[in-house]
């Protein structure tokens, strides 16, 4: 048996071991997070690094922001808008000059402030309008990734207001000088200013390329080839504008950004920190929501319910196949550009207007590979894939979570109106079966979160809200206000037709 002295010394050694091991236990922790957890958090640092450049739109120097500022002017200008086709929040049928980009991107975080799950330009869109900030980090544009970047998207996005020919005439009428300054190599054709009654006029008032090769020729196809090329060139240049401008719209300095970047641990409340722990732990949100804008840029079927009808109408909306639906349009473009690299109506990265067609083509070929890997059923005539496997059917791009508390409604269909309900939907493993196309991704499984944990997650998501472009300008009046309406004054009302 031990005597007291020996027992005492062993007891002291034991205490030392206990103290030392306790000190070691916390080594490497950052604000209570283990090194592995902190590494995961660091990968989520909002807007880390410079915005990636667009490889398809690097021809023009960004130093003077000419393109971005012209894009900003056009973004706000409603004079371009043709007649509204469907009565709704945009106005009544026949109303003109009621719609611009800003109509559906009207809030501080550039979403649609008007109620309803989906937006209306001159007619209804079939999907929820996403925000328009921090877009430079996206590989593909729109929730389906229909476009390979902001340029391709920008060549068509004005279609919510007017046809390509009407757009061209509008720019000539109102922004001729600005446009020619921005694109000195491809100035506007002076014939765009001629009335259709002028014998030299080659441009009708409105119109665009026919919707399919088999459709009869329309006003666009009836124009001389050089006029068609001019319209296409204008569309390509519009794509550049509507790439450069959104790239200016950033929302830095969110509490979470300061928390990670500056290690300012006061930026998150204790509840938000618990939510962060869930985000990278039990909820595993960072399986997909990671990176500088909290998206993996991949497409997943998260079981988000589709919208069945256009609001307040009986007009049914076709079930949205998401990425699967976009694949065919992308592959059609690929086939076109492979047949003719100078195809005039191809505005993606592989097309003739791109600054890096090689890279653009490779990205489309990657899509083709994806198509071959995941297609289950093909149309025997067209060879188009009519059914993809669960990886693509009903899959939508992981949306950025930056400013997510300010960007309701949610999902491609806008059917979920609160952030808490979004979390609850994920907690349930997706929406009700049958309410969406395809099979929910294996990444979406019931999370078993408690009500308290859901509230903690929602609180954390609130810390992802950065300073809006308008607030940035307000805080620094010497800086350019990218949220300001810089459109030229409205044009005089159009002359009513003679009786």
């Amino acid at each position, binding site marked *: *048996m*031990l005597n007291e002295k020996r027992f005492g010394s*062993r007891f002291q050694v*034991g205490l030392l*071991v*206990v103290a030392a*091991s*306790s000190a*070691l*236990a*916390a*080594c*490497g922790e950052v604000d209570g997070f*283990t*090194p*592995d957890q902190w590494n*995961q958090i660091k*990968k989520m640092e909002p807007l880390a690094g410079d915005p990636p450049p667009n490889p398809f739109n690097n021809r023009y120097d960004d130093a003077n922001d000419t393109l971005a500022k012209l894009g900003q002017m056009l973004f706000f200008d409603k004079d371009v808008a043709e007649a509204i086709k469907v009565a709704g929040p945009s106005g009544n049928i026949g109303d003109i000059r009621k719609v611009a980009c800003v109509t559906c991107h009207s809030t501080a975080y550039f979403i649609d402030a008007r109620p309803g799950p989906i937006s209306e330009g001159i007619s209804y869109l079939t999907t929820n309008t996403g925000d328009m900030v921090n877009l430079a980090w996206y590989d593909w544009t729109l929730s389906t990734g229909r476009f390979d970047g902001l340029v391709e998207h920008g060549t068509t996005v004005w279609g919510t207001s007017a046809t390509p020919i009407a757009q061209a005439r509008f720019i000539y009428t109102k922004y001729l000088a600005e446009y020619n300054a921005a694109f000195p190599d491809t100035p506007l054709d002076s014939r765009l200013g001629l009335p259709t009654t002028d014998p030299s006029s080659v441009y009708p008032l409105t119109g665009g390329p026919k919707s399919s090769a088999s459709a009869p020729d329309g006003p666009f196809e009836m124009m001389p080839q050089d006029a068609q090329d001019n319209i296409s060139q204008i569309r390509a240049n519009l794509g550049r504008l509507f790439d450069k401008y959104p790239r200016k719209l950033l929302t830095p300095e969110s509490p979470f950004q300061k928390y990670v970047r500056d290690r300012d641990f006061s930026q998150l409340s204790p509840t938000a920190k618990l939510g962060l*722990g*869930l985000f*990278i*732990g*039990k*909820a*595993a949100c*960072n*399986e*997909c929501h*990671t990176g500088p804008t909290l998206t*993996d840029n991949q497409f997943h079927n998260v079981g988000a319910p589709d919208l069945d009808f256009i609001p307040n109408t009986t007009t049914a909306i076709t079930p949205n196949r998401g990425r699967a639906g976009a694949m065919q349009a992308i592959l059609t473009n690929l086939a076109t550009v492979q047949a003719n690299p100078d195809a005039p109506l191809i505005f993606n990265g592989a097309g003739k207007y791109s600054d890096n067609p090689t890279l653009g083509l490779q990205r489309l070929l990657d899509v083709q590979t994806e198509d071959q890997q995941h297609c289950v059923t093909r149309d025997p005539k067209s060879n188009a894939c009519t059914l993809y496997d669960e990886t693509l059917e009903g899959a939508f791009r992981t949306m950025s979570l930056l400013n997510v508390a300010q960007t309701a409604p949610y999902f491609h269909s806008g059917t979920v109106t609160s952030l808490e309900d979004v979390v609850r939907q994920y907690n349930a493993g997706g929406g009700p079966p049958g309410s969406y196309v395809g099979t929910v991704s*294996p*990444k*979406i*499984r*019931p*999370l*078993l979160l408690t009500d308290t944990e859901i509230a903690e997650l929602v609180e954390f998501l609130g810390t992802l809200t950065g300073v809006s472009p308008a607030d940035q300008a307000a805080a620094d009046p010497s800086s350019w206000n990218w949220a300001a309406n810089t459109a030229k004054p409205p044009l005089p009302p159009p002359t009513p037709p003679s009786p």
Partner: protein
Amino acid sequence: MIANGKPARRPPTRYLERGKRAWQVLAAVSLLASPALAARAFAQDEKPEAPSLPEATDDQAPPATDQFATMEQEIAELKERMAQSEQERLKSVSALSFNGYVDFGYFAPIGNGGVGWIRDAGNVVFPQYKSYSWTFLGDLLATPVNSRDEVASLGNAPGITRFDSINSSGAGGFVVNEINLRPRYQLSDNAIMRASVNFIPRTGSDFALGDFIEADLAELEYLPTKDGKTSIFIGKMMPIFGIEYKERKSDQRFGITPSLIDRYTTGSQLGVKVRSKLLDDWLILAGAVTNGSSTTEQFHFYSEIDQNWGKTLNGRAAISIPVGHLFRNDDKLEIGVSGEWGPQDRATDNAGKMWFAGLDLQYLNANFSFKAQLIKGGSPGEPDAAQGVYGLQLHPSGYAEVDWQVLPQFGFILRSALRDAIVTLGTDRIYITKEIQYTVGARVVFNPHIVAKVEYLHNQEYGGIPSFLDDIFTSSLVLAF
């Protein structure tokens, strides 16, 4: 196995074969030691043993023939007294006895919040597994704090609610690891009832106690032969796979924590078991028919009550070589092979088969032992995660351990273990383990009833799994009775 510095297993017949003089000394000492014998703890898996005795030598032989008659008379008297004493003892000793222990400890996780895994978020490390909902790297049970294989923290994994019995959140602390009670009742001359019940005090919640009780042994041992070398067990009993199960309780374990593969080999099984020693104890054969595998209850596979009709077949064959005087008397080298095969645990049908195959080796000396075990196995699992049937690919894994009782009061343990496994649950979860665990520990024997132990476990990931700090320090004070 070494318990308190003494080998726990010795063939009792050896003592009876050492000649007349040795037997005489044995008889005399037995007479004196009979009260102590009566109180000796039983070994769970073995028959009660004879006490350790020094060997008789030729030097002790009586030298003179003229003293022979006197000696004969004294021996006769001793025999008579011994017989009388044995009769008295048998009358006074109850057929019911109790053993057990209290195991109290302090542990300190070092790194990763006491959690033995990390999640491969976004399948950055192993993109080939992106079809699974969640991919986990490391080992759920890499941070044990006690002989129960309870870990410092199971972590906060998505899509599952686990009973995290320690749930330390990475903090060090004291814990009553286990209170064990082992009743034993001699039903007849050749039948023994045994049970082992654990009381585990843990944190409650919402006004409910968190304490729980676990019955890990409830068996009948029947010895059908007179030599006592064959036993038939019925009930909830110890497994027969490998060797680690023999020291699964903390009063039997030289160190504190189990190896990385104990989860496959040390779980109690329900069924029927037969074990026999043949060829003068050189050959040990054991076989069993059980509900499920020998996996431990808190791991993914165990099922106490079968949900399928098929039963698991278990077997082990070992050669026990009395190495004898290589180092010291009674040294023993045992080499065994084990196997299990049957319907996978938790499955409701017999379609998928679970199997394990193993090789074990142990060299046992009074103060020193070397043990090693190798295991491989598999189970297909079920594609539908909702069925809760896990799949397993257990690649060759094992451990090697040295236990050395350097002094009667002090000993140390070194162990290196490896686990290379993939565990899946449908397409929901995949656990990828490529882990090497190094264990160093020491023990202090205050007396046969009080043993203090400390251990440090260092976990090292390999095979492409990012290394992360998930070590653990733990200690144990075992108070046995």
